[in-house]
């Protein structure tokens, strides 16, 4: 009889064990994510499903130490089914990129193509963090290929591009690190207004922040807007083949938007596809945050290194703009460089807000938007490149 009761109340008894305590900690972490989503409006579309997914994945185990929503290989729970179908196959990030491509208007970049270089400079943090992670990994007893893979995925957090981060981490089959890496990527994306301003202020003088930038409204022809996604896909696919899935899906979404004959599909990609995949992606990422693997020093280290990557990406963009000003006749406002990260359009808005705070009549939003969309391209090229270079070295 007591066995029946024990079986019946196993979930409650579970909280009295060490694993149960871990579960409670995970509930608190999930609660914080849900609080940030609802009360602070930080990336609610992602942090809320991630938080809820984490609650589901940490519910008391029913079969062989695993929650019912995850299940076993022989009888997978719905979150494992989603993980296998959408993350392990890299499908969700690709679908998100189609939606993002349909949402992004590349016209500001086409009007001011020089801004594309800020999208390259602001990837500096990815590579420097990659190197720093490689220095740290052997001290944790992680060497060789595994260290390379982890360093690549941690560095990409700096791109402030969630889908690319998930894509890279999954490509290197870092399932155990997927939770902290994704949470770091999405948390920092939502914290752009808090993280970027102090970095920008530290690297620029007031005089530099007051620099005005001319903006002439040049008309971009429809043929250019249609040719752009097609030609960019071909070039990226030829030069950095591993970036083709990301660039290709982003550009496909953009072609749907710009072609002018697929209005319904464009709207579907921007709304229904984006919302649906975001829900599934968030829940699935949350399901990787199982206490046993999440509550470790490695998680704190990944979060710290991710922040480091993010700060150095911002700094890279600003310093590059300052460097360019040494040669340019018409100076650029160095704050524009910080908008070269992928967090669109938040980063451009932060830069404009800072310019307005110094001088209410200074309007640099359009160049900042140009740098910001360039950052989208830069981060996916960097992601593809990281996969390509690291895979090449590992295969040797």
């Amino acid at each position, binding site marked *: 009889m007591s066995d029946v009761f024990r079986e019946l109340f196993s979930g409650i008894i579970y909280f009295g064990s060490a694993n149960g305590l871990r579960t409670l900690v995970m509930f608190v972490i999930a609660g914080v994510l849900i609080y940030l989503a609802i009360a602070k409006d930080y990336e609610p579309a992602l942090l809320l499903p991630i938080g809820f997914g984490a609650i589901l994945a940490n519910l008391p185990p029913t079969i062989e130490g695993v929650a019912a929503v995850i299940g076993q290989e022989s009888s997978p729970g719905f979150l494992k089914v989603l993980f296998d179908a959408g993350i392990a196959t890299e499908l969700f990030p690709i679908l998100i990129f189609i939606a993002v491509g349909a949402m992004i208007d590349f016209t500001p970049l086409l009007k001011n193509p020089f801004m594309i270089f800020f999208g390259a400079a602001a990837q500096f943090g990815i590579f420097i963090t990659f*190197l720093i992670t490689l220095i740290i990994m052997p001290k944790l007893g992680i*060497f060789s290929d595994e260290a390379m893979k982890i360093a690549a995925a941690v560095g990409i957090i700096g791109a402030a591009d969630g889908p690319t981060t998930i894509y890279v981490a999954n490509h290197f089959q870092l399932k155990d690190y997927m939770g902290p890496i994704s949470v770091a990527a999405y948390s920092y994306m939502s914290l752009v207004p808090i993280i970027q301003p102090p970095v920008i202020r530290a690297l620029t003088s007031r005089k530099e922040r007051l620099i005005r930038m001319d903006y002439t409204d040049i008309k971009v*022809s429809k043929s250019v807007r249609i040719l752009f996604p097609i030609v960019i896909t071909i070039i*990226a696919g030829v*030069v950095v083949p591993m970036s083709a899935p990301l660039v290709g899906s982003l550009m496909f979404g953009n072609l749907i938007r710009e072609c002018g004959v697929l209005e319904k599909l464009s709207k579907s990609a921007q709304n229904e596809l984006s919302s649906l995949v975001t829900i599934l992606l968030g829940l699935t990422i949350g399901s990787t945050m199982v206490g046993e693997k999440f509550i470790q020093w490695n998680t704190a280290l990944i979060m710290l290194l991710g922040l480091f990557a993010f700060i150095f990406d911002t700094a890279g963009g600003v310093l590059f703009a300052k460097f360019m000003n040494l040669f340019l006749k018409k100076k650029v406002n160095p704050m524009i460089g910080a908008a070269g990260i992928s967090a669109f359009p938040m980063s451009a808005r932060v830069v404009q807000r800072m310019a307005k705070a110094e001088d209410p009549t200074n309007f640099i939003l359009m160049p900042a938007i140009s740098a910001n969309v360039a950052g989208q391209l*830069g981060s996916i*090229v960097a992601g593809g*490149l990281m996969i390509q*270079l690291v895979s090449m*070295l590992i295969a040797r």
Partner: protein
Amino acid sequence: MSWIEQLQQMDLLAQGGFVALSGLVIVFLVLGLFYATIKLIDRLGRPKDGSG
């Protein structure tokens, strides 16, 4: 740390340095190629549409 581990770490760092440096340079090159492409298609698109 044994000398084998030290060697491994040095090798890892050398490879990492290669990835980091070449990665950053190639990102600039690829985006530079995108820049040239935008300029080119803009030039091609202009006479046809008579705009821009």
